[in-house]
């Protein structure tokens, strides 16, 4: 893979070779398994999440094919139910969040001018756990034991009486397993963004993408425990006969829904927030100016992440809770549209004031705005309880969430793929292929999901494996199915475009777009140590302002190259003042071992091999203990009082 190098940095040749020696990795099998480089891990996240996306997408195509005609017989109800559950679960948990975490992993250290994440080994652990958890869940599908209770798995349908077998155990254990990765990743993002920013990058100079990732990480930290608890209770109810959800024994079936949606609603913003961050990161390059109203956008991000914890009951508008609470949640759900509106109009204003450069990433941003706004409108309609009670659990809801999920997450993800492909692979993509992909994807998306509004309003419930022919249902379902294939063709072209770029693409310059953030001021693809000279940041757009750029060329003092060890800088949390240099961990096999031990643990729990599970838990404890064991230092270096 040939690369082009960045403008000559101020670091001396000797410094560069020392940095290479400390950070570089010899290609070997062991290095492949033991790497802790955030760029390799980020790339792996992206590839693995895309793989799960293809699996979930193909499941969706199978579902759409079954639904193309009424009374169709392609899939049995059991198969269909497993497919839509795996489709939803995988899209939400195994594609959206990990994909965006992949972007975060690759870009956050680059954007803030650090050499790696705060906890590189934890980062590697997060990836392995994500991979194993995803495989754990998908592996159940060929055996017909995949989860089949819908992605929100309401009890009592999912308890051991109504769903015997392994289906829901795969779901609960798989999500608990995956939760480890998500939590670890979130803690890592927060600490990285707080402590590893380049000197001078005070909080008001942090790129919006990083703000979005950090807000997301905070939401994960406070939302995910509810899901973990829910799944743990369900697992206990199924396996060990506890009674949390048993109404005959003082339990309550709505407890599941409350806990699930206390997680679930923040989760939809966990999905969409980093994607909106991608929008804010891509837009400046193609409008040649910064996003309008940086402060307002940051405020919108923060307020969404707070308000999103207060609207969960809008998913339970039909369960017959007290009217008063509905009025409250209805108000909260309408209010939450305002931060989204601020962001949308900030981007529109940015486009209106800048000079629009139409390239494939910008096309996807336009597709994002159109689609997401439509989906947001239907969301606001649901916020009115009376309307929601009529259309909830109908295809109207399916239309809403595909509009916001595909509009709000997939379009920005595709924009990000095209935008950062030169940075990640060092190659340019083919513009014509990209445009074809965009138009196919965009039209396919609208053709697939717009009709769902209609047959939802015409009374078609969701999650049905087949339907009787009714006026208005058959035609539009067929249209949806055709659209789904158009959409798949568009995605196929995206895939072709990426492969073509990797194989045949022109070598990319370090900064093909004239981007504004720090990743564009280093090589494509970046060196293992990211920056030969750690930058000093003077503005929100460091690649655009002269002092920040020259700080990387001229300020090559030893305290900025940090070439005598695998080190990076710590800065203060709020205003980014330099604190001290810290040593970063070397690559290690411990993350892989720990993830494997956890995989054994969860597999053993699944099959009720409790002794094996106990042994695996012990192995986990041992690996953690060894991982954290303090290296031995001479006493005087430690400062031990005699």
């Amino acid at each position, binding site marked *: 893979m040939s690369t082009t190098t960045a403008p000559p940095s101020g670091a001396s040749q000797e410094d560069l070779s020392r940095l290479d020696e400390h950070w570089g990795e010899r290609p070997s099998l062991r290095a492949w398994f033991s790497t802790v480089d955030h760029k390799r891990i980020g790339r792996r996240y992206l590839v693995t999440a895309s793989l799960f996306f293809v699996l979930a997408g193909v499941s969706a195509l199978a579902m759409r094919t079954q639904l193309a005609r*009424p009374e*169709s*017989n392609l899939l049995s109800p059991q198969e269909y139910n497993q497919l839509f559950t795996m489709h939803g679960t995988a899209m939400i948990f195994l594609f959206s969040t990990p994909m965006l975490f992949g972007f975060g992993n690759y870009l956050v250290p680059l954007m803030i001018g650090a050499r790696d994440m705060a906890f590189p080994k934890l980062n590697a652990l997060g990836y392995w756990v994500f991979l194993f958890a995803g495989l754990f869940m998908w592996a159940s599908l060929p055996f017909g034991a995949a989860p089949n209770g819908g992605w929100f798995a309401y009890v009592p349908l999912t308890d051991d009486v109504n769903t015997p077998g392994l289906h829901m155990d795969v779901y609960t254990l798989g999500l608990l397993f995956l939760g480890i990765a998500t939590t670890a990743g979130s803690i890592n993002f927060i600490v990285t963004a707080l402590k590893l920013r380049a000197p001078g990058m005070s909080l008001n100079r942090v790129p919006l993408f990083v703000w979005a990732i950090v807000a997301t990480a905070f939401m994960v930290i406070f939302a995910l425990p509810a899901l973990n608890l829910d799944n743990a209770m369900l697992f206990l109810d199924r396996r060990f006969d506890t009674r949390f959800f048993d109404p005959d024994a003082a339990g309550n079936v709505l407890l599941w829904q409350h806990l699930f949606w206390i997680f679930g609603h923040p989760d939809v913003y966990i999905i969409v927030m980093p994607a909106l961050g991608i929008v804010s990161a891509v837009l400046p390059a193609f409008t040649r100016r910064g996003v309008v109203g940086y402060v307002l956008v940051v405020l919108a991000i923060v307020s969404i992440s707070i308000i999103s914890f207060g609207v969960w009951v809008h998913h339970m508008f039909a369960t017959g809770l007290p009217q008063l609470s509905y009025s409250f949640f209805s108000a909260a759900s309408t209010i939450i549209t305002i931060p989204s509106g601020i962001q949308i109009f900030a981007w529109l204003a940015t486009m209106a004031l800048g000079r629009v450069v139409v390239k494939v990433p910008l096309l996807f941003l336009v597709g994002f705005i159109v689609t997401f706004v439509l989906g947001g409108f239907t969301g606001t309609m649901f916020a009115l309880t009376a309307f929601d009670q009529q259309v909830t659990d109908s295809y109207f809801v399916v239309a809403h969430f595909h509009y916001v999920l595909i509009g709000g997450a997939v379009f920005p993800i595709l924009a990000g793929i095209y935008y950062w492909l030169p940075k990640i692979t060092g190659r340019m993509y083919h513009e014509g292929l990209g445009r074809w992909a965009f138009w196919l994807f965009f039209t396919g998306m609208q053709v697939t999901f717009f009709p769902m509004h209609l047959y939802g309003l015409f009374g078609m419930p969701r999650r049905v494996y087949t339907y009787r022919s009714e006026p208005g249902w058959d035609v539009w379902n067929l249209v949806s199915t055709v659209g789904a294939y158009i959409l798949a063709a568009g995605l196929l072209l995206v895939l072709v475009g990426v492969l073509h770029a990797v194989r045949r693409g022109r070598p990319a310059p370090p900064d093909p777009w004239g981007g504004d953030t720090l990743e564009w001021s280093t090589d494509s693809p970046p060196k293992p140590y990211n920056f030969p000279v750690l930058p000093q940041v003077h503005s929100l757009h460091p690649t655009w302002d002269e002092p920040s750029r020259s700080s990387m060329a001229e300020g090559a003092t030893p305290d900025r190259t940090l070439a005598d060890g695998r080190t990076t800088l710590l800065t203060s949390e709020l205003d980014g003042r330099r604190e001290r240099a810290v040593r970063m961990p070397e690559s290690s096999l411990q993350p892989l071992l720990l993830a494997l031990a956890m995989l054994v643990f969860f597999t053993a729990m699944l099959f009720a091999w409790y002794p094996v599970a106990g042994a695996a838990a012990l192995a986990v404890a041992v690996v953690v203990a060894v991982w954290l064991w303090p290296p031995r230092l001479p006493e005087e270096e430690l400062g031990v009082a005699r």
Partner: protein
Amino acid sequence: RTPPPPPPEIRSGQPERGAALIARYGCGSCHTIPGIDRADGLVGPPLTRFGARSYIAGELVNNADNLQHWIADPQAVEPGTAMPDLGVSAIDAQDIAAYLYTLD
């Protein structure tokens, strides 16, 4: 689009209408019949490749008259058979038979 012609065994039946009638009378809940939605019953014998069969219900020679007769009134042909009398009119039986003979 012109409707398909009747099969050679039967002169004046309309196979297309027969297919709709089969769905309407619910034959598919007992028989597996190719080309009919959700006709995957396992109660009676499958009617796949019915045009190539020799006997009807193991009793009658498979020709158009016998088939119409059987469909319209199975209890008269074989008293006590499990196939109920579904009140199929003669015209309908003709069209149903026409469809069945298209299954070669």
